[in-house]
């Protein structure tokens, strides 16, 4: 009997614990993602499996690239250290599931902003960090210099799960050319197959073509055709439903672009605090309370500029200097003939 009473008391205790959990009301939280990131101490960022210039890991595991810099900017803003990022390499197929399931918090993986992705699958695109378009790469020796020389029966290598696959179909259909699509899951496999002669042409975003060309056994044997067959605005993505986090990522990117516009670099950022221009002073945190809206301190944008640099620096370091795309093309500031134009930080 005594044993039974003991069991019963422990049962009651268990019930009491359960009640305690039940009655705990949901704490009003501003941004779960921000709170969790600060608690964990690093930003969880989804990147590509290796695309030079955008997100690429070197031999010692350091990630570099313009996509990587977006995540570093977020880390600098939120955690104060641009190196506090945990990178998760994802294939095109895996990327959205990884984001919606909460495995990563920012997807910065040369992802094209489209209506259906934005509206359908629980994602929010926060901006564009690279304006791109789909192109074709062929062997120089083939003598092809334009897509108008493509003939029936051409085989085209590409990745599955990308807008590329759909654009390719639209392109060949509109031209009335029959083609053989060979779609692989990983970019490296596509390159290997094209390089070996399995396909006549390799199609993806032009920046991707330029970057992958550097990986081929003999880069000089291949050329990227001049035609661009689609619009590919690439940018970082966050989960739907956390608007504060969305704003943080958006304005981290915008800060980098706006810093370039005002000539603030990682080198002169500190000295800009005493600038006469109030817009510059706001951007380096010497004026206004811009960070408060996100629950951040006032120097968040200064940290981004100091630790990651402005957009121009990032582009030069990652894309222009390695010789991937020396010409900035549309990815130039609007003041210099490009289409990079961001809302003012005020």
């Amino acid at each position, binding site marked *: 009997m005594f044993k039974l009473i003991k069991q019963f008391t422990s049962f009651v205790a268990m019930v009491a614990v359960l009640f305690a959990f039940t*009655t705990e009301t949901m704490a009003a939280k501003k941004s779960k993602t921000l709170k969790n990131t600060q608690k964990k101490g690093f930003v969880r960022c989804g990147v590509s499996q290796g695309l030079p210039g955008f997100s690429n890991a070197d031999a010692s595991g350091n990630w570099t690239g313009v996509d990587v810099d977006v995540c570093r900017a977020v880390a600098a803003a939120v955690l104060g250290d641009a190196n506090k990022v945990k990178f998760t390499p994802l294939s095109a197929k895996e990327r959205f599931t990884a984001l919606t399931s909460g495995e990563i918090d920012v997807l910065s993986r040369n992802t094209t902003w489209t209506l259906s992705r934005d509206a359908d699958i629980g994602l929010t695109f926060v901006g564009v960090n690279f304006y791109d378009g789909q192109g074709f790469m062929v062997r120089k020796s*083939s*003598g092809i210099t334009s897509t108008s020389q493509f003939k029936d029966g051409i085989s085209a290598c590409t990745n599955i799960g990308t807008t590329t696959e759909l654009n390719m179909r639209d392109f060949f259909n509109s031209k009335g050319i029959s083609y053989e699509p060979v*779609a692989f899951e990983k970019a490296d496999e596509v390159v290997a197959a094209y390089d070996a002669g399995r396909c006549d042409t390799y199609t993806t975003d032009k920046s991707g073509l330029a970057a992958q060309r550097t990986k081929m056994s003999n880069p000089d044997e291949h050329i990227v055709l001049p035609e661009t067959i689609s619009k590919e605005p690439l940018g970082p993505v966050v989960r739907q439903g956390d608007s504060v986090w969305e704003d943080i990522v958006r304005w981290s990117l915008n800060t980098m672009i706006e810093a370039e516009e005002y000539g603030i670099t990682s080198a002169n950022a500190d000295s800009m605090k005493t600038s006469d221009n109030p817009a510059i002073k706001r951007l380096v945190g010497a004026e206004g309370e811009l960070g408060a809206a996100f629950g951040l301190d006032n120097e968040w944008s200064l940290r981004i500029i100091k630790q990651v640099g402005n957009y121009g620096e990032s582009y030069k370091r990652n894309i222009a200097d390695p010789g991937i795309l020396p010409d900035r093309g549309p990815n130039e500031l609007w003041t210099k003939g490009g289409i990079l134009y961001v809302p003012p930080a005020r």
Partner: protein
Amino acid sequence: MKFRILAYLFFFVGTADLFIKIFYGNIFSDLTEDYYEIANPILVFTPVLFFSIGGIFLKESKVSLTLENFGTSRIKYYSPQFICLSVVVLIFLFFTFNAQMNMENRGIDFGFGFLTQEASFDMQFSLMDYDGQDPYWWAYVVALLNTLLVAVLGIIFCTIIGVIVGIARLSPNFLIRNSAAWYVEFFRNIPLLLQIFFWYYAALRALPLPQDASPLFGVTYLTIKGYYMPAFIWNNLNIFLYSILAAIISIIFIRYYANKLRDNEGKQIPVFYISLIILFILPALTFLAGGVSLNFEIPVLKQLSATSFIYDGGIAVPPELIALTLALSLYTATFVAECVRAGIQGISKGQKEAAASLGLTPNQVLKLVIMPQALRIIIPPTTNQYLNLTKNSSLAAAIAYPDLVLVFAGTALMQTGRAIEIVSITMLTYLSISLAIAALMNWYNKLIEIKEK
């Protein structure tokens, strides 16, 4: 009496629990500070649990449960089963609630409406007409057929290779026996994915470009872009098919007659040769008299650009299919070979000796005595190997063969974002294919097992 009080206590706790949860409305708590909201099914489940426990106590109080007779009581008998059931229900509830809740939070809706939308992507290779304008469900069917194609080809080849190697392992010839053993040990012990990569990226990459390929058997070309062979163009194909059907029916009659002749008069006629002749002559006659004719469409080299060529016309077998079939059948054949060897070795030597002493020829011994018995041992484990092969065919995604996983659980999943729907459809599909193969093999196993009268 004590149990009755206990029972009422549980009823009270259960009611109170339910009451609080309904009126304070918080059956989902965020116990974790993580990114998901984890639905807590324990909280949903507790009132039910309390009521059930109360119910058991109430029932038991009527048969005056004491500690002395606890060992034989129903509580002791039923509680393990009850706990087991609760755990299963809890796990199920946990995952369902979680998925539902997180999908709701992320603004993802659930539904199969996307299946009728336009797929808008192309496929490299399909057995039936497929175009990007077709809906997703048709893409699914076409991809499924591609999976079945590679599975059927793999099963056929692995059976042929497996049986030959399995018998070769028992050969009295030293060289044959040992090469078969080496083959089995080598291919069995290397991961399948590596073998697929080897065949696709290494072996097939060594093939020539189309313009450098020298003809194989005169009119077929094995190149890096695939295997090109002539297509058959038939006139009056149906007459030809009917003639084959007629040949098969007449062979069945002849066999029946031959069996009767053997049983009644003890005469043996060479059924096998007669069947072969009929099978050859009847269709051949249709060419002479039935107006059937056959033309070949021979692949012709076509230039796409200065250095890129392709063969036009005929049938093109993509290299992805070749590599996958090769890897799957060579790998699975090792296991089939071991099943065959085990089956033959499982028949006692006495059977063979007894059959020989009856005056049967060695061929007859194998055909009439050994194999029928060995098959009973071979079939069940071989079924498992067929299932493995079918499931392993999903590795096709690694080398761009457009199978169910690459096309449907890959491209379609990506373009629609319907992860839960598509993955569950794909899982159910593989489950059905496997169960169908298992059912077929079980039926065959029933057919050949010892029929006790």
